């Protein structure tokens, strides 16, 4: 498993990638209503407050759903098949997309506890999840 598509770093999402570079999975939190969310935006999607902070997620979560991809959809993931694409429900609440790595793809089940790991890619550290 190596290589893959590289996310675009923008002035808006830079703080997220700065976090992963030092081993932190950062999520947004709203100081007004305590909502936690992943979107990098300047307001809370629950209450529209602009009084926001950053939390460092524990990196623990469970597999909400998953698929094993057998057909490479495009060249940049060709070397990765078969790979597990999943939605992870973080312990803090928000759901994020990830791959499940460092295990047999067929061993991944819904509800399985996982924890974050960081994969170096294209100068970034991409959050990935592996069995906890």
């Amino acid at each position: 498993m190596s290589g893959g598509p590289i996310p675009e770093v923008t002035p808006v999402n830079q703080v997220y990638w700065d976090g992963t570079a030092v081993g932190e999975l950062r999520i947004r939190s709203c100081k007004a209503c305590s909502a936690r969310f992943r979107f990098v935006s300047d307001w809370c999607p629950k209450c529209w407050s602009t009084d926001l902070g950053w939390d460092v997620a524990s990196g623990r979560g469970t597999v909400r759903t998953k698929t094993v991809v057998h057909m490479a959809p495009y060249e940049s993931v060709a070397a990765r098949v078969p790979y597990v694409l999943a939605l992870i429900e973080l312990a803090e609440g928000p759901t994020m997309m990830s791959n499940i790595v460092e295990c047999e793809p067929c061993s991944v089940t819904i509800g399985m506890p996982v924890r974050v790991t960081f994969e170096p890619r294209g100068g970034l550290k991409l959050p990935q999840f592996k069995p906890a």
Partner: protein
Amino acid sequence: MSALRSWGLRPSDVNGLLAVPSGQGVGAIDIYTHEKLGAELGLQPAFAETLNAGGASFAIMVGRAASAIRDGLADSVLCIGTGKFTKPTSGSAEVMARMISEPDFEIGYGPFIPALYALVASRFMAERGATSADLARVAVSARQWALRNPRALMHDRGAVTIEDVLGSRMIAEPFHYLDCSVPCDGGGAVLVTTAEKARRLTQQPAYVLGYGEAHSHGSLSSADDRLIDTLASRTGADAFKRSGLSQGDIDVAMLYDAFSVTPLILLENLGFCARGHAGRFVQSGAIDPDGSLPVNTNGGLMSFGHTCESSGMSLIVEGARQVMGEAGDNQVAKARTALVHCYGGMMYEHATLILGQSQ
């Protein structure tokens, strides 16, 4: 065009135009499609726009057209969809993947449309007990309908069995090749007009009896509890309420079937089946020709064809044809009503349309 000509209409008779943007398949969305189509058709509409809500666009176009007519903006609105499906092996697949995922966060994980739907399917199967054979049974039914419909892309390809589906190559679990719709080029159109004008044009119009529309999230990560309990339950309830009909009154259901799992989810979300019962419902033959609830009677996206940005138009056209008694070899006897459900994204936004033979 042939329908418009057969109805004796001229360009000056059409004063509304709705279109979906062309070029989505190559990541070059043309938001001026209505201008180009209007010019080609020689129209000078009082009401026109290019609108896009993915696969939901088509039921939404009919809803918008009906509103515009009620508001007196126009009395004859042409709703057009044309689509071109580029081969997913070309560079467009990654362009599409960036478009349909959260570009800031998700592209690194290798998302693509079948895999995103597979995430929905896996959760549905885990929570509702549907099996791969149940999913496959949807593809079997779609092909049965296509064999009756000379216009269907898979008309001459013969029947498929559950074993054929389960034996076809794996794309993204649980989807095999035959769990996926068939990409192709194509398009279609419907004319939405006043009841009075419709009766002058045709003996049996399809009346818009009910409509419901709802939008929520823009990515699977933000679906919250709507991953499989989709907004179809809300749009269905709204459409039923407005029509004064209930599930038992529906004679034909056209349920957007980009993948085999989605009719199962919609059968439950729209209230045709209790939760967890869609699998055994389709296994009983209920959605087949001669079943109790004929579904996707033209073969659906799975066997009629998925025409990319005009995908859902074939569902609307077929629903209307059934009610108008013009469905040809695949006409359902006593198709007095049809429910058409279209959704966009990975079931992010929804629209339900109920058509009937009488107002």
